[in-house]
């Protein structure tokens, strides 16, 4: 039993991990077919997992409704929305378009999901402004460079800033000096400094992620199996 509970999952992880790490080095068509197939399997497995999620949702909101907790009416709205969407979806056969015209499911998606998504997303426009107002204070040298580079890039990104801070060329005697405008500085910041930092973060994060993956395959990291040190 101990074997089944602990060793078997570790063995499966090891075999899957090693097999699909090696798959990368094998150009043979069989190896590509294998990864395609198993990727499909993953989708099927996570499809089943959705049942877990829905059970959790029902549990949370059913409790609210049963106890008539504050705002339980909204839980009712949520259930109604789930049921309606599913009904419409199955009625339309899961297609958003049939015979060239929109189905009810397509309508529901286009006029509820899309605007809701877009609206939630667009709230970022307000939040980015309020975050900038709160955070961009020259409290320390680090905060100051952050603030200055943000302001310069904001100038360089829009036509107005580019017009206000254009690049210039001054010649003194035989020397030609180029004074960069906001746009040039933006380009340089993004191309050079930003690339450097991203690259360093990328390398660091990748080392960490390869290390964790290796530990998982070798059975040194098993928290994903649910804590359980000695079960």
């Amino acid at each position: 039993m101990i074997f089944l509970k602990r060793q078997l999952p570790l063995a499966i992880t090891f075999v899957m991990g090693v097999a699909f790490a090696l798959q990368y080095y094998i150009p043979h068509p069989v190896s590509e077919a294998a990864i395609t197939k198993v990727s499909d399997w993953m989708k099927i497995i996570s499809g089943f997992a959705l049942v877990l999620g829905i059970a959790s949702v029902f549990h949370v909101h059913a409790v609210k409704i049963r106890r008539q907790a504050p705002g339980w009416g909204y839980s009712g709205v949520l259930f109604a929305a789930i049921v309606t969407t599913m009904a419409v979806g199955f009625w339309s056969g899961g297609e958003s378009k049939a015979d060239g015209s929109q189905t009810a499911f397509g309508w529901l998606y286009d006029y509820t999901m899309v605007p809701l998504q877009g609206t939630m997303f667009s709230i970022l426009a307000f939040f980015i402004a309020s975050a900038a107002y709160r955070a961009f204070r020259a409290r320390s040298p680090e905060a100051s460079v952050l603030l200055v580079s943000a302001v310069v890039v904001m100038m360089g990104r829009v036509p107005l800033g580019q017009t206000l801070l254009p690049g210039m060329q001054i010649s003194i005697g035989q020397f030609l000096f180029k004074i960069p405008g906001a746009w040039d500085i933006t380009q340089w910041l993004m191309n050079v400094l930003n690339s450097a930092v991203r690259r360093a973060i990328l390398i660091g994060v990748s080392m960490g992620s390869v290390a964790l993956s290796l530990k998982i395959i070798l059975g040194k990291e098993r928290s994903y199996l649910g804590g359980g040190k000695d079960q």
Partner: protein
Amino acid sequence: MKGLLKDLARRMIAIDRRIIFLLIACATLLPLLNPFGLPIKVSPEVQAVYEYIEAMPERSVFLLSFDFDPSSKPELEPQAVALLRHAFRKNLRVIVMTHWITGTGLADGVVTQVAAETGKTRGKDYVFLGWAPGGYALIISMGQDLYKAFPSDYSKTPTLGMPVLEGVRNLRDVNYMVSLAAGGAGIEMWYVFGKDKYRFEMAGGATGVIAPGLYPFLRSGQINGLIGGLQGAAEYETLIGRKGMAVAGMDAQSATHFVIIVLVVLCNVFYFALRGDKGKRV
């Protein structure tokens, strides 16, 4: 007098966020209703995409992948429209697809509309393959056999034998590819599983957020060009000489950026006004 100023600064620094929200809303809405038209400057990474397409011979194969959904529509749709207009004007054969199932309807709408305005025919000049599951696995299978990956297009017409796909067997036969990406399943994936293996030239169009992260790929030549956000779209519209929604939106952009910059400057002024005070007290 000084005390009054301090008081003002203290109040302004803790200003209700909702006033900022209102300012942003006005700065967006007013230019949209009444645009003022500022000039657009073209960056080399957008120019590169334009020039590559410009240099392609007629009937070359151009693959455009809509790797986004309606939530990124405001930024990526203008890019898609501008690219498609350019490609159709150059009489390229255009293959459109998407990795995001939620982007299917949007992609179909955009292609159909641009094709209609340029008088192109579905199946002959362009094809919309629709969505298929798999992410990177889909790219691999397109690299092996396009017709297996997409046996039929979005309107359920068999892909095999379509005039637009003549001579196209798999990704190797694609001349140029642009992925318009809003996140994970996008440019990097196309590069790692597609371009690298099947050797086609590619570029990216990205939302403003992920565009900075793609500069390393641009620098290393993994992609040959990059269209970033609405600004990128406006630049492309300028290049093809058809100003559209991106150029109009850029005025609103200028206004909101200006508002934020002024806010940041003000908040620092208030901050320093208060800091001097604290410095004395300590």
